[in-house]
């Protein structure tokens, strides 16, 4: 589904990604872990087309097509979704209206009829209950005045409505207490199917107790320096990142 080959990117003249390689197949959940500043969020941003980043090398194929050649909205329509680490507040743009527009733009790009208000409302009601979101919240402006937990639940709610093929969750656990974390993780797990995939970016192992990955990758200094199964996450929780960092430094100084 997704194939990242030797991806390099910089922002404001600084090289952040220095050759990322990653393959994600349908039905898989990949966790990307790493210390602060290792390039995790940059990778997410590059995959969804944030314009501040300059691609300096490599390629990304999504279902065989050149993902990096697409505009941000075209990537979304192709089925790529990012749950933002810091969802932006958009005063004056109603949550429900926004999401209906988004879904119908995606449907239009696939040659499908737009959902009318009644059908959309039914879809919304169905997905809402899993994320414990209230209708009154969704009648407000996008993320405006939402608590941290509400913002993150709203991200996963949008994911549920838009039903992407590949969902990237960028530090969705940050700022959540354990109860909110469970709700969010539960929501994400419910969306898992054999024909879609998830990339979970996180600093801590905690989220992975609830969203169990098939693969865990450690990102450090712009490269994936270690990959393994879900046990790797537990090992990181126990031992921290230092043992990997020093192993990398010994193997390749600088």
């Amino acid at each position, binding site marked *: 589904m997704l194939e990242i080959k030797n991806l390099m990117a910089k922002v404001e003249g600084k090289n952040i990604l220095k050759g990322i390689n990653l393959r994600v197949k349908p039905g898989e959940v990949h966790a990307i872990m790493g210390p602060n500043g290792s390039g995790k969020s940059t990778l997410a941003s590059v995959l*969804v*087309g*944030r*314009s501040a980043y300059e691609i300096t090398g490599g390629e990304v194929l999504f279902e065989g097509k050149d993902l990096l050649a697409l*505009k*941000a*909205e075209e*990537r*979304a*329509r192709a089925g790529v*979704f*990012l749950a*933002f680490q810091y*969802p*932006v507040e*958009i*005063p*004056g*743009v109603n949550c429900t209206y*926004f*999401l209906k*527009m*988004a*879904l119908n*733009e*995606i449907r239009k*790009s696939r040659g499908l009829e737009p959902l009318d208000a009644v059908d959309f409302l039914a879809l919304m009601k169905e997905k809402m209950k899993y994320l414990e979101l209230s209708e009154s919240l969704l009648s407000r*402006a*996008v993320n405006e005045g939402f608590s941290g937990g509400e913002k993150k639940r709203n991200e996963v709610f*949008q994911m549920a409505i*838009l039903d992407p093929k590949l969902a990237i969750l960028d530090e969705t656990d940050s700022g959540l207490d354990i109860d909110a974390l469970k709700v969010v993780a539960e929501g994400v797990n419910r969306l898992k199917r054999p024909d879609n995939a998830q990339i979970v970016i996180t600093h801590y192992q905690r989220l992975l107790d609830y969203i169990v990955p098939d693969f865990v990758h450690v990102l450090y200094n712009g490269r994936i320096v270690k990959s393994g199964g879900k046990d790797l996450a537990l090992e990181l929780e126990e031992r921290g990142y230092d043992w990997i960092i020093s192993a990398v430094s010994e193997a390749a100084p600088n």
Partner: protein
Amino acid sequence: MTETLSNPVFRPIDPYVSAFERLFAAEQDRTPDWISKLRQNGFMHYQELGLPGPDHEEWRFTNISPLASRPTVPILVHTHPPLTMANLQPWLIPGLECNRLVFIDGHYSAQLSEIKSKAEGLKICSLARAMTIKTALVEPHLGRHAQATSQAFVALNTAFFQDGAFIWVPAGLALVEPVHLLFISTVPETGASIHPRNLILVQRDARLQVIETYAQLKEGENLTNTVTEIVAGPNARVEHCKYQCEGPQSYHLAAIQIHQEAHSETVSHSISLGGRLARNDIQSHFAGAGGNSLFNGLYLAGNDQLTDHHTVIDHAQPHCGSHEFYNGILHGRGRGVFNGKIFVRPGAQKTEAKQTNRNLVLSDEAVIDTKPQLEIFADDVKCTHGATVGQLDSEALFYLQSRGIGRDLARQMLMHAFAQEIIDRVGNEPLRDYLDARVQEQLAAIPLPVNS
């Protein structure tokens, strides 16, 4: 306000002088003295003041030289072209049960107007009619509030006005149906000028909603110079909405002067979609304690257009509150001007005044000149003001795009949201929906920058 007299003025060969002489001669025999005096005084003030030049403090950013050099002939006698209700369709507000007064090139059309509301003491009619049959109601107020002594265009209007609306809401009556005043310019000839005049008197404990629409039948150059005087009696409530949607070649000058008695509440909405020059002077004077005033405005200006709001809130009495919210969207080579004056007079304690002006500037060539001006002579008051000038939020744009919404549509959504902050304050639902739809159409027509 003596400063205006010392300001430099244009003194071109003035076509208004001969026009006024003609009007005066024609009216002499059939016009009551008080009206003649009012006109004469208006014209005298106009001649003293002259049209404001670029060095005039209140007109620094709004250059009227194209107007001053343009021939201007007031339409004093008018034969209506055969307009029908079908012609008015674009400006009728769907779902709004209302009284409607229609003015074609400044002249009342009984045929297109409709008065539905009936209540003892209620008067809704043309001002020309009211001046002859309701002199006792009109004379004490007409020309007493708008400032012909300091505002040249008010003076000019006072000299030349032919008609407009007269509304008298008797004490205690909460008028359910709004009054819709529809001013249609047929754009009869280059150089024609139209001077509508409205007088709205809302007595003690009474309520009124009034809408003024200014529109053109076809695009073209024309000058509208309108004056509305509003008196809100003690504990009265008046919601006034002015919707200016004349075409991009039009010149529009408007003065709205609100006089507020104790504990009255007034609302002024001004939705100004632009013209070559659209200037709105909106002023509220608190003549009694405990009043409240909301000024709420949205303005757009694109290529070679200028939209100007000058507001004055005069806190002459204690315990009054005023809130101002103006949002502007400037694009292409459009210019916006906002000047908000708040006076807090000595003794006007417990005044609360808040002013906000926000601007979206969508191109490198678009310009906004915004200036708050607070003059406070009382010590126990709360006054705040703020002005912002910015572009569309790129983070919000990206967020919308990342959900599959194309960049153009995302821009439309954000502009619309910005406009809606203002539109949402319009209390009447059919009117709000109508304005929202018109503004959306206008926003959709804004050319988008390439490669952004």
